[in-house]
């Protein structure tokens, strides 16, 4: 029993959920997150995003602010209201937004705001900030050394 929770914990570290209606962003983002060793779950609309968050318990959610049918702040409100998902850090990713929108989003519990186009460096820093700086060291250790992850971009 103990072993299985440990296993679950281990897997969860690597799970990141992306909620965005932009297929290209998924392609770009998934490629790099995977190369760093993360497991990526993709949701292309807000409803899919909410259900996947509740089902998969990702460690981090990247959420597009402007989506058809339901905007990111409403998605966040729902996530915060649900017991299983209320503690998952959520980072908004969007085009240029006004300061009051960003302020309101922080008030309801957003963990950060990234502006499109997002550079890998910024994403990397944000993940470190949300999941702790040791996450990449762990990933490096557990990642298949033959499949060289794309760390070189940052000149670490």
């Amino acid at each position, binding site marked *: 029993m103990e072993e299985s929770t440990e296993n679950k914990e281990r897997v969860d570290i690597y799970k990141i959920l992306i909620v965005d209606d*932009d*297929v*290209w*962003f998924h*392609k*770009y983002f998934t490629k790099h997150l995977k190369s760093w060793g993360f497991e990526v779950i993709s949701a292309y609309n807000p409803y899919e995003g909410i259900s996947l968050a509740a089902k998969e318990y990702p460690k981090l959610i990247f959420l597009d602010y402007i989506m058809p049918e339901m905007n990111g702040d409403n998605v966040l409100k729902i996530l915060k209201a649900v017991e299983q998902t209320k503690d998952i850090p959520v980072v908004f990713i969007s085009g240029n937004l006004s300061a009051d929108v960003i302020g309101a989003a922080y008030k309801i519990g957003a963990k950060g705001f990234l502006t*499109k*186009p*997002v*550079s*890998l460096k910024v994403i990397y820093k944000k993940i470190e900030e949300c999941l702790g700086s040791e996450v990449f060291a762990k990933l490096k250790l557990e990642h298949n050394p033959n499949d060289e992850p794309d760390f070189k*971009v940052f000149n670490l």
Partner: protein
Amino acid sequence: MEKYASTDKQIIQDFLRTFKELCQNFENELDKVCAELLNQIKKMYDIENVAIFRKMPDTLDFELYKQLGDKNQNYWDNIYQAILDEGSIGNLLATCSMISTNLSEKSYLLSPLYGNKDFFGFILVEYNPKEIFDNSMFEDFLFICSNYLSHKISNLELTNKITELEQNMNLHIADRTISLVKTNQQLADKIRSLYKNLSMALPHEFRTPLNQILGNSDFLMKHYNTTEPNEAKEIISDIYVSCRRLQTLIEHYLVLSQLELIAINIEQLEEIRNARTESVETSIYNILSSKSDYELRYEDFKIELEDASIQMSENFFVILMTELIDNAVKYSDNGNPIIIKTKAEPDYLVLTVIDYGIGISPEDLKKIDAYTQFDRDKLEQQGLGLGLAIVYRIADITNSKIMIDSQVNDHTKIEIYIPLAKNL
């Protein structure tokens, strides 16, 4: 001389003429001054045999320049030879002071003359010491005379030099002015042809979509009540397509005319060549996100990107990349793959875009080439898009190279070699 135009020749001839006059002036002035001096000596001491010897240019030989009396050339040549043999000329040159000597019962006085930077010559006086009341006074007088003459010569030489310099300067200014006028002329020609090309091609290209919009909307207005909804929808979508075409055209024209203007502005060109795109990959994905047309072909896109920074402004890269992707999407059918690849070589980023569509015929490819050389008025009438011309122009401005490999109804492969960003 060939490199000068006829006006330039005229200027040089003018200059040479003035220069000759100038030299003539100098000689005339010198002549006057010397004559005046010799007359003074005659007036004071009544001596007939006074001569001025002048140093030959580039040698240490002297020759008779002017004399007071009417002795022949030989007379003075003999004396000069005798004095030279005796060593007085050598003394004169070595000491630069007045030398007196006696030769075959006659006395001679040599007084040196200086120019501005060189030994000019000397005054030679043949006299009888017994006839002179006070010899030392005579020597002093001669000394003053030679100094006066030296001073005059320096002045003349300086004036001469200054005038010569002025002339030279004028020549240079004239030369420079001519080349400036020529450059301006070329620039004006270029702008004129640019203007002509734009204004000639513009109306034709605009007319087609505009007529379609006008015709269709006119039909709808007149037959509003009798048109079936389906038919109306078709007409409206036709109008929409024409509007889009018009929009693309206007955008292309604006970009292209801006590019043409940049290409002739050296300062702006420099600024643009210093700009860079930090991440090609981010930029490309951003472009793909920007248009909904691309999402419809999501499955067709095969993307293999190696990220790098390039020496091309983000703005230009976006324009270039959008054109390439637009063309690939427009000219290939759904289901045919579109390949976008980037690969960093040591100096270049190789950007490859391949589509399996209608392709470009070799004739049309040639036309694009010609097109960039301002043949727009002819080509635009054949409906060749401006997109590739824009790509060519940007490549041109940013020192990139383009290779196009295409086969009609098979494929189009465009490879662009963009310089990698210089390390900061």
